[in-house]
C-alpha cells in the first residue's frame, strides 16, 4: 500500500514540474517585456528597472527558473510587488476562509448529490427523475454569482434568515462560522452538485443493468440493499473520480463566490492580485491550487483501492 502511494506520488512529480514551468513562464508568454507587463501602464522606467532587479529578470531563463523552483521547494513563494509581504504569508492568512468554504461545499455536495443521483437512476424515466435531472441542468447553467446573488437576496435580505455576507472564523464558534458559509456553499455547490448528481445517475444506470444486480434481485433483496450496497459501491469509481475533477470547479468558483459574499479568502486575494498585476502572488496562488488539485486526485486514486477490490496496488 505504502509503495503504491509512493509510486503515485512519483507519477505526479512530472505533472507538478510542468505546472511549475507553465506558471513560471506565464510572464514570458505574454507579449513584451515581463518587467513592463508587471509594472503596468503607468510605471516609470525606474519602477520597471526596480522590478527587473528584484525579480532577477535580467538573468537567463533557465537560471531564473532553477532558482525560482529552488526557492519554492524551500517554501519561499517570493514577495508581493504591491505589499512587499512574503507571498506565503499572504496566502497563509487567507487560507482559512477558503478551506472552510470548500470543505463545507464538498460535504454538502456529497450529501445532496449522491442520493439525488441514486434516486434518479432508480426511478429512471419517471417524473422524479426528470425533475432531478431538470434541476441538474439548471444547476449546471446558473453561473455561481447569479445563484449567489439570488440566494443572498431571498434568504438574507428578504427573509433575514442568514447573514448577507462576511466570514467568522471557526474559533469564534461553530454556528457563527457555519451560518456565514451556508449561502456561499450552496451557491458554490450548485454546479458541483449538478455534476456529481449527473455522473452518479449515469454510473448507477450502467451498474443497475449489470447481471449481478439481477442476481441480487433474484435473491430477494429489498430496493435499499440493492441500490446502496450492491449498486452504489460498484458505481463509486466514476463518482469519486468526478468528485475529484470537480474540485477544479470549486477552486474556480470560490474566486467568484468569495467576491459575492465578501469572504476574505484566497479568491479575493486572487482578484486583488490580478487587478494590481501582483505577479508573484498570482503565481503562488495558481501553484498552490494546482498542488491541492493534484493532491486531491492522488487521494482519490488511493480511495479507488478501498472501494474496488479488483484495483490492485
Amino acid at each position, binding site marked *: 500500500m505504502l509503495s503504491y502511494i509512493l509510486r503515485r506520488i512519483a507519477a505526479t512529480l*512530472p*505533472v*507538478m*514540474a*510542468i*505546472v511549475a*514551468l*507553465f*506558471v513560471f513562464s*506565464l*510572464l514570458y*508568454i*505574454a*507579449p513584451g517585456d515581463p518587467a513592463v*507587463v508587471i509594472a503596468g501602464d503607468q510605471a516609470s522606467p525606474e519602477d520597471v528597472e526596480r522590478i527587473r532587479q528584484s525579480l532577477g529578470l535580467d538573468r537567463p531563463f533557465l537560471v531564473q527558473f532553477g532558482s525560482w523552483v529552488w526557492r519554492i521547494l524551500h517554501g519561499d513563494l517570493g514577495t508581493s510587488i504591491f505589499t512587499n509581504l512574503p507571498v506565503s504569508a499572504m496566502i497563509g492568512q487567507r487560507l482559512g476562509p477558503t478551506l472552510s468554504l470548500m470543505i463545507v461545499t464538498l460535504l454538502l455536495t456529497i450529501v445532496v448529490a449522491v442520493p439525488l443521483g441514486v434516486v434518479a437512476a432508480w426511478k429512471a424515466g419517471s417524473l422524479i427523475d426528470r425533475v432531478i435531472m431538470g434541476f441538474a*441542468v*439548471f444547476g*449546471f*447553467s*446558473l*453561473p*455561481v*454569482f*447569479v445563484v449567489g*446573488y*439570488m440566494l443572498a*437576496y431571498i434568504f438574507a*435580505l428578504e427573509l433575514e434568515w442568514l447573514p*448577507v455576507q462576511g466570514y467568522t472564523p471557526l474559533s469564534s464558534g461553530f454556528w457563527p462560522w457555519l451560518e456565514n458559509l451556508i449561502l456561499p456553499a450552496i451557491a458554490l455547490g450548485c454546479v458541483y452538485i449538478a455534476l456529481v448528481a449527473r455522473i452518479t445517475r*449515469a454510473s448507477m*444506470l*450502467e451498474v443497475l443493468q449489470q447481471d449481478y444486480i439481477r442476481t441480487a434481485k433474484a435473491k430477494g433483496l429489498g430496493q435499499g440493499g440493492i441500490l446502496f450496497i450492491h449498486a452504489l459501491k460498484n458505481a463509486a469509481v466514476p463518482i469519486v473520480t468526478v468528485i475529484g475533477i470537480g*474540485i*477544479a*470547479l470549486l*477552486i*474556480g*468558483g470560490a*474566486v*467568484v463566490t468569495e*467576491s459575492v459574499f465578501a469572504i476574505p479568502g484566497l479568491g479575493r486575494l*486572487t*482578484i486583488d*492580485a*490580478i*487587478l494590481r*498585476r501582483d*505577479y508573484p502572488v*498570482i503565481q503562488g*496562488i*495558481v501553484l498552490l*491550487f*494546482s498542488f491541492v*488539485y*493534484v493532491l486531491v*486526485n492522488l487521494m482519490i486514486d488511493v480511495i479507488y483501492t478501498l472501494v474496488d477490490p479488483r484495483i490492485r496496488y
Partner: protein
Amino acid sequence: MTDTTVNPQSLPAGFVLAPQLPEILRPVTIRRGFLGFLRGHPTVAIGGALLLTLVLIAIFAPYLGSVDPTALAPAKRTRAPSADFWFGTDVLGRDIYSRVLFGARVSLTVGLSVAIFASAAGLAIGMVSGFIRWADGILMRFMDGLMSIPPILLAIALMALTRGSVGNVILAITVAEIPRVSRLVRSVVLSLREQPYVDAAVACGTRTPMIILRHILPNTVAPMLVQATYICASAMITEAILSFIGAGTPPTIPSWGNIMAEGRALWQVKPYIVFFPAAFLSVTVLAVNLLGDGLRDALDPRMAKSL
C-alpha cells in the same frame, strides 16, 4: 397478439386455432422525420429555439427598441425599470435594456469562438497524440500539467498578462479548454484504432491520412459536437466570470459580466442592475446545455452514459 384479420369460423374442421390474446400495453407511436425527431427529443427543440431567439436578439440588437448602450446620462442614474427604461439604468445612466441586448453579442461570440477554436485545436492535438506514439507521451504530459490548473484560474492567469479585449478573452478561455478536448479526441482515436474495420484498412495498405479522413474523423464528429456545445456553455460562463472580477472584456464594451460587475456595489439596493444580465446569461447557458444534452442523447445512446 396473434391474428385479428380472419374470422375463426372460416377455419376448416379439424384444425385448432390459437386463442386470441389481449393487448397488454398501449400502442407505441413511432416518430419519423425532422419534426418527429424534435418531438422525441424535446430538449433539442427547446434549447435550439431559445438559442435561435438569443442569436436573433444579438444580431438585431440595434433594431429592438434599444439606444446607444454606451451613451452616458448622469441625470438619469440608477432609474428603476419603467416604460422609458425597460430594465432601468445603471450608475452612469446607461440604458440597461440596450446594454443587455448588446451584451448578447459578446457572450455568443465568445461562446461560439471558443467552442470552434478549442475543438479545432483539441482535434489536431488529439489526432497527433492518437497516431504518433512519441508525440503522445510529451503532449499528454503537457496536457496533464495544464489540466491540473483549474480552468478558470488558468484563464484568469492568462488574462492578467494581457490587456482586456474580447480576442484575448477568447484566447485565454480556449487555452484553458484545449486539454480536455484533446483528451477526449485522443481516447476516441485510440478506441477507434482498435476497431476491426480500421485494422482491415491498415492491412489493406490504406495510408494514414486516408484512414484519418475516412474512418477516424467521421466517428469523432458526434462526440465532438456534443463536447463543443458544453464548451460553448462553459466559455460563456467563464467570460462572464472574468468580466465580473475585472479581468475580462474591457468595461467600455457592454457584456453581461461587465454589467453585473458595475451593479455589484449596489446590488442590495438596486438588484435589477444585476438581475437582467444574470437572467439573460442563465437562459443562454441553459439553452446551450439543453441543446448539448439533447444532442448527446440523440446522437449516441451509448455515449449518454459516458459523458
